């Protein structure tokens, strides 16, 4: 079977991205135009600003992806696009462009779930073995997903309030760190000590769900109390203490899920997969427990379109095509 060539588009948040992927595994190009510099001044992603940037950049990014892959649109077998979840105005730009391409060249149109993309970013590095468990941690998501087989997803745990990345950004704001705060916290934590002993939020004994808002409040209270008492907070220690709590809970629940579900691999996915503390914690725990850990390389952790092209191989092979009536689905469930 010849391997299909898929042109994939991703615009769910603040990266305008396009990629050409062969057979779901072979990345021929992976172009990401980040808007982070534009959103820094607002201290976070502003949806209307993000949507405007996507329109400005979308065809440049698509053209670059084709050029870098050294193919033309005629060589492409299908157009894949993130249909959700994400910011609706941002998603609509990618969806509109993908539909125009599919219509203009009479190519199959494939809608891809953003989180499925993050999961399949791992397949760009290593063959996946099922059943497996995937820990998703990003600015918008914290989930544990059980995959009994290729292309089948079962959400076994999710956050009940803030996503892990969201808690990172809020703590960073409390420490007056520049946006995006997550990587800065991680950096500070490398040289700090867990001196604050913030609570670990486990929820019910057998639950795979997460909660980070209580931890976030504890951190903010610690900072405010110190300010009122005129004490100096060591940012490195605060960051290390916060990170220790997040990582301990994420790692413990992920490891328990792998054991209870009989997973052959543990996958890490999402933007927080770039977090050194989490990578280190998971690596150590997996070595101890004899679990195979798969972590995407740094450049595939954040939002990109190669991961969408990787995940698109399922709807492509199953001939599960979307129609030209495809909409952006900001709250799309992973099925």
């Amino acid at each position, binding site marked *: 079977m010849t391997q299909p060539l898929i042109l994939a588009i991703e615009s769910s948040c603040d990266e305008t991205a396009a990629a050409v992927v062969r057979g779901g595994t072979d990345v021929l190009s992976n172009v990401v135009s980040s808007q982070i510099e534009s959103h820094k*001044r*607002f201290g976070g992603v*502003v949806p*209307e*600003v993000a*949507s*405007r940037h*996507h*329109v*400005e950049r*979308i*065809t*440049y990014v*698509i*053209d670059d992806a084709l050029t870098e892959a050294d193919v033309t*649109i005629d060589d492409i077998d299908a157009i894949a696009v993130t249909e959700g979840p994400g910011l*609706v*105005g941002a998603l*609509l*730009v990618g*969806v*509109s*462009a993908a*539909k*125009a*391409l599919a*219509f*203009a*060249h*009479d190519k199959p149109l494939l809608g891809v779930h953003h989180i499925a993309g993050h999961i399949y970013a791992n397949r760009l590095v290593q063959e996946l073995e099922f059943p497996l468990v995937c820990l998703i941690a990003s600015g918008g998501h914290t989930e544990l997903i059980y995959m009994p087989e290729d292309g089948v997803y079962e959400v076994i745990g999710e956050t009940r309030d803030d996503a892990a990345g969201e808690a990172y950004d809020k703590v960073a704001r409390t420490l007056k760190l520049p946006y995006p705060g997550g990587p800065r916290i991680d950096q500070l934590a490398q040289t700090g000590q867990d001196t604050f002993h913030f609570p670990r939020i486990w929820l019910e004994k057998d639950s795979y769900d997460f909660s980070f808002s209580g931890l976030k409040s504890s951190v903010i209270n610690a900072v405010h109390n110190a300010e009122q008492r005129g004490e100096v907070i060591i940012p490195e220690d605060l960051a290390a203490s916060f990170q220790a709590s997040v990582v301990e809970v994420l790692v413990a629940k992920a490891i328990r899920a792998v054991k209870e579900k009989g997973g052959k691999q543990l996958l890490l996915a999402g933007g927080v997969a770039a977090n050194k503390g989490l990578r280190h914690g998971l690596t150590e725990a997996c070595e101890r427990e004899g679990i195979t850990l798969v972590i995407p390389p740094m450049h595939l952790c954040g939002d990109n379109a190669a991961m969408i092209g990787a995940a698109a191989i399922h709807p492509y092979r199953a001939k599960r095509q979307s*129609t*030209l*009536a*495809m*909409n*952006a689905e900001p709250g799309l469930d992973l099925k």
Partner: protein
Amino acid sequence: MKIVAIDTSTKQLSVALSDGTQIIAEASYVTSLNHATKLMPLLERLMQEANWSPKELTRIVIADGPGSYTGLRIGATTAKTLAYTLGIELVAVSTLELMAASTGRTGRVVAIQDARRGTGFVGMYEDGKRVGDEQHTTVADFVAALPADTLMTGDTEKFAEALAPFEIVAPAFRTPRAGVLALLGATRIPVDAHAFEPRYLRLAEAEAKWIEAQRHD
């Protein structure tokens, strides 16, 4: 020439095909609840019925705003991607000019889109030629100084009091039509598809506040 014209800037969705001198086909949803799901199926249907294939197209004409931000982006992204990927011309025409032209009337026409809190996006046209800049402004102030023989079109109900002295175009001619858009754009100079952006005529709210804050610093 095989021209496709698209307008998604207001609550109306309109698509047309034209050979540059005639309107071949035109279809509109006067109140489309979802441009994102309706635009491409409608375009596909018109083209199938006219027996046109995408590869034969020579030009895309898009109404580039002002209008609903989301609506503008759906149309703009679709139009620029089609033009880019088919290697054909992209022409942008003001939505306000399109509204004025869709009245079918000569003389002075003012097109108004409601932008809330008494403001609107307004543009004035005289025998099809733009007079002054299109702008986001207080509608009552804008029309106060105009001669009484000015024709009003667009979201006129929202400004009934301020527009009382003026003739309001009949409802049947008050909505922008892609057929009119196709003919307006048939002979205009194309823009660069890659660089094309809709004209929002207003900054994103966060951007406006940020600029304001810089001014105070």
